[in-house]
Structures are given as structure tokens and as C-alpha cells.
């Protein structure tokens, strides 16, 4: 069977319905992480899952809409970080399509790469908006230390972002891959837009 095109823009109803579910999964992930007082965000599981299931376009849409919803319900600043979420969705979709998320060991590498992408996109936003900080206690402590010793705002800000993003996205990708492997086949098949319809007339 030929693989469906990577940039296929045909949004099937199934793929569209996946987007709100992905946003919901992100929301619940963040809620649980807060409830269990985990030191990570874990708020992009849905985005990564949507990218794996339905490709980078749906993943990117899920990421962007996720931040719009966050902005409308909790924290207006997350509108701006929609760009980061969009990039996470794109990166995860492309990596999966290229076969980079097909085993646990590969998923670790992919998780680190997605974390790197997220950090690269977020750093200019952090600098422009907050003067370089992220709001995460551990990251900001590192930021202050690096800034005091090197006077390099960009380096300090990048390190601030990456100490949080790398482990966070790594765990997100591993959880998403685990869930994807556990999904029943009929759910996975739902998003395969290459299914041919045979006409019997």
C-alpha cells in the first residue's frame, strides 16, 4: 500500500474530530501533571498523538488550536506560544512519517529532537516577551546563574528553555508512542485517508 502524502490537506471528518480530542488530551495531561505535582508540563501529548495518527498538518492545527483554547480559558499569554505548539505538531508529524518514531530507542531520539525544536522556537518568544525567562523555577534559576556569569542573554534564555523542554518533550513522545502502540487497529485505520472505496454497482 502506498503511504498517504505527507502534506495531504484533505481533512477528513475523522481527522477534524481528532483535533478537539487532541486538545482535550493536552488539557487533561497538564491537569494530571499539576494534580500529581510533577515538575514537567506534559501538555502536548495530544498534539504529538494527533501528528502520529493524522500527519503534520492535523498535528500543527491541534497545537495551534490548543493554545487558542488555553488563551481563552486560562492564560492569555499562551496565544503567543501557539507558534511553538504548531512547530511541535509539524516536527512530530514529519518525524513519524520518516519512520523516526517506530521503536522505543528511535522515539527517544525523536523526543529530544522535538524538544530542541520547541526550545529554538520558544527562545526568541521568551526574549521578546519576558526578557528571556520561562516562568519555570528550575529553568529561571539556571537563567539567572548563566546571565550573572556570562552576560549572554540569548545563551541564558536558550538554556533556561531547553532544561525544561528536552525532558518534557522526551517523556511526551514516549507516552504518545506507548499509547499509539496500544490503540486498537480500527481507531488507527480511521485516519488513513488512502483507503479506496470499491464500488459494487
Amino acid at each position: 500500500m502506498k503511504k498517504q502524502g505527507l502534506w495531504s490537506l484533505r481533512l477528513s471528518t475523522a481527522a477534524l474530530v481528532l483535533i478537539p480530542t487532541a486538545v482535550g488530551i493536552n488539557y487533561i495531561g497538564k491537569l494530571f501533571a499539576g494534580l500529581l505535582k510533577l515538575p514537567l508540563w506534559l501538555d502536548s501529548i495530544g498534539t504529538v498523538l494527533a501528528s502520529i495518527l493524522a500527519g503534520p498538518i492535523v498535528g500543527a492545527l491541534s497545537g495551534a488550536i490548543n493554545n487558542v483554547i488555553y488563551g481563552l480559558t486560562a492564560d492569555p499569554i499562551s496565544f503567543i506560544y501557539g507558534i511553538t505548539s504548531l512547530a511541535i505538531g509539524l516536527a512530530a508529524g514529519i518525524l513519524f512519517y520518516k519512520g523516526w518514531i517506530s521503536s522505543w530507542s528511535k522515539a527517544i531520539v525523536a523526543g529530544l529532537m522535538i524538544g530542541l525544536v520547541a526550545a529554538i522556537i520558544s527562545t526568541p518568544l521568551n526574549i521578546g516577551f519576558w526578557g528571556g525567562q520561562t516562568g519555570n523555577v528550575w529553568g529561571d534559576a539556571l537563567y539567572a546563574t548563566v546571565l550573572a556569569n556570562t552576560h549572554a542573554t540569548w545563551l541564558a534564555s536558550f538554556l533556561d528553555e531547553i532544561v525544561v523542554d528536552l525532558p518534557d518533550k522526551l517523556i511526551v513522545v514516549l507516552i504518545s508512542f506507548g499509547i499509539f502502540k496500544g490503540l486498537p487497529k480500527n481507531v488507527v485505520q480511521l485516519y488513513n485517508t488512502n483507503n479506496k472505496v470499491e464500488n459494487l454497482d
Partner: protein
Amino acid sequence: MRSISLYTERNTVIHAMDPISKLFYILFALLIPIILPSIKVSIVCVVLGLIFLLVARVFKKTIPVFSFVFLILLTVIIIQGLFRPGNQTTLFHFGPFTLYKEGLMFAFGVAFRVINIVSAFMILILTTKPSDLVESLVRKGLSSKIGYVIISVFQIIPEMMSSMETITDAQRSRGMETEGNLQTRMKAFLPLLGPVILGSLANTKERAMALEVRGFNSKGPKTYLLEEKKYRYSKVVQWGILLGIACALAWRILV
């Protein structure tokens, strides 16, 4: 079922405004401090935003959001005041640390910009029903499918939250620990989240079929369930805001 939206029902002038006009105001609040980067302009914008929030009688509702923002801004002020490169003018010492004027001024600039943007968004969020906002946008040309997606998130999240509560109770009754050291809490994450995610993904199939059956993908022109709301003075307000931005630009170039 509780709602996740921050919308607060009031009967004020701001509530009766067109959601699109509120989007224009956000654009205004974003652009003006960029066009005229002086701290006085930022203060004027912040005061303007706060006045609108007071007029809309939703100021109390902004406190949780603002207190979260203030916490981060406090660390910005401390870190920039102490360590910002280019710090020269000493303000005062405490212990081994020195607070500098340049870093502090920079941090105040950041603080005003953030408060300004947050209050502009709060005006939109607290005084507009999400469904009204999406409907206005769809009427202005946003894809109705994207409109559906955004609206349905507001239905799906409360649904998932209640199934999350059920699952948490079920797992606890089986003796799963959700409190304790970090390792215990980490281990609890997957058994709690897994069933919610699997269940919701399985639900998408039924949702998709239900939509297809109702002609979600049909090509014909779509109609609206609700009559279009009439907002007064929309055009005046929107052109006024654009004129304000144009004036700011002219000021920047000429003066």
C-alpha cells in the same frame, strides 16, 4: 457540567460590543507599545485596559490570571535588576547583591508590556461568549469546520474531565497511590491518563460518523442556527482603532 470558559455574564457596554471590535483592540494594545516604545505610552495603554475591565465590571475575575502573571514578573524584575548585562547605575545594595537602575527599568518595560497585552485579552475573554466569538469569525470568513473544532473543544474538555474523575476514583479504589514521593506520582500518571486517552480516541469514531450522517462534509451553502446579532457602533469603533494606530505610526515617523 462545569464550563471551562472564563466568560462572565454582565450587562455592560463592553459586553454588548462586537467581538471583532475587541479583537481590534487587542491588535491596538499589541502594536502601540511597539510603534511608540516609551514607558509613558505603555502606562497609558495599561490604564486604558484597566478602565475597560472596570467598566465591564469583571475586574475581580482578572485577579487569578494577574496574580499568576505578577509572580513571573516579580522574578523578571529581580533577575534583570541584579544580572542584566549593561547594568551600571547602582540603586542600592542588600547583602552581597546590588540592584541596578538599567535592569530595573528594562524589567518595568517588560512588566507594562505584559500587563497591557494580558488586560487586552482579558477584555475579550471575560466579556465574550466563546460561541459568539467563533460565530462572528465564521461570518467574517473563518472556515466553519475550524469554527466547529473550536466550539467542540469547549464541550469535549468538560466531558473528559468528568471521565478523568471517574477513572481516578476507580484506580484509587483499586489501591493505586496518587500521593507520595516523585516516583510514586510519576508511576500514577500513566494508569490515570491512559484510559482517558484511549476512551476519547475511540469516541472520535462515533463523533465522526454522527457528523457525516448529518451532512458535515456537504458542499452546499451553510446556514446559521441563530440570527445574526446586531452590534451598535462596530464600524465606528473599528475605524477609530485603526485611525489610532495610523496616528501612532505618523507620530513615530514625523516626530
